[in-house]
């Protein structure tokens, strides 16, 4: 058997803030990955993250409002290839402001083509511009695929431990 380290060729894409018209495709990508159509959830996220009155519909920061929430999509023309969502959270559990990624999804058929990497880097750039110098995420221990992705981006275990109890 030969060394099989093949990877899909890099998919060219443009990363920008999600627009209302992108959300149905985002819902489809999420459903492809999770098997669940969560229309209301994604519409609500879009409203809260990208559609506030103070925001504008491109990547230029409004003069009076510093953007700290980002709902980004990677597009090839009108086709949404993937999405990522994150925000700057400040002094949560005593931690200085840092970026948090809490959703990422890429169309199944273009996995391993660098779209997730492009989205993650684009989000990190925005976090850096917003003043953060650390990015975090939290994952289910058994969600190996997504954890492997974040590991491949150089992420390691941080100083926090998640604790919980039944109520």
């Amino acid at each position, binding site marked *: 058997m030969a060394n099989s380290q093949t990877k899909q060729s890099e998919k060219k894409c443009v990363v920008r803030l999600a627009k209302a018209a992108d959300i149905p495709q985002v819902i489809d990508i999420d459903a492809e990955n999770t098997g669940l159509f969560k229309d209301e959830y994604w519409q609500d996220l879009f409203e809260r993250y990208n559609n506030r009155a103070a925001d504008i519909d491109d990547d230029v920061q409004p003069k009076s409002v510093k953007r700290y929430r980002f709902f980004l999509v990677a597009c090839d023309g009108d086709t949404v290839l993937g999405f990522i969502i994150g925000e700057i959270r400040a002094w949560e559990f005593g931690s200085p402001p840092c970026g948090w990624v809490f959703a990422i999804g890429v169309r199944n058929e273009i996995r391993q083509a660098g779209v997730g990497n492009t989205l993650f880097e684009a989000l990190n750039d925005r976090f850096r511009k917003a003043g953060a110098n650390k990015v975090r995420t939290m994952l289910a221990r058994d969600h*190996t695929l997504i954890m492997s992705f974040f590991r491949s981006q150089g992420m390691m275990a941080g100083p926090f431990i998640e604790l919980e109890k039944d109520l």
Partner: protein
Amino acid sequence: MKLQKATRCALFAVLELAAGPDRQLSANEIAEKYGISTNHLAKVLRSLGRVGLVEAVRGAGGGYRFSGNRRRTTLLDIIQLFETIDPIRNGEREDGDDTAEGKALCQVLMEIEDTARATFASLTLDTMIKLVERSR
């Protein structure tokens, strides 16, 4: 946490062979770099060969080369060939485990085992090789 000698040999060998496409090294070359026994390493390489992760190259200048997929093979895939990292989760029992104290201790130890398993399962060889490069 400490890994067994065979596991460490296997991880070193695979990381070394998977570091470049068509990289080919003898057991001696690998053993020398990591200060391990060639005989021990040869046994480990045979185990890795049986599951298709490495293949022996015959003839002059022969040796071993990586034959798996470094973007899909995780540290856990390799470790599990040589040892169990979550014995309690796998049902291993020790004296005192049936007492309330033993059960509570098992619960805490399982939490550690689950974290270790998740860590090893999420690190592919490709990611490890990047980590190695950053450590140079």
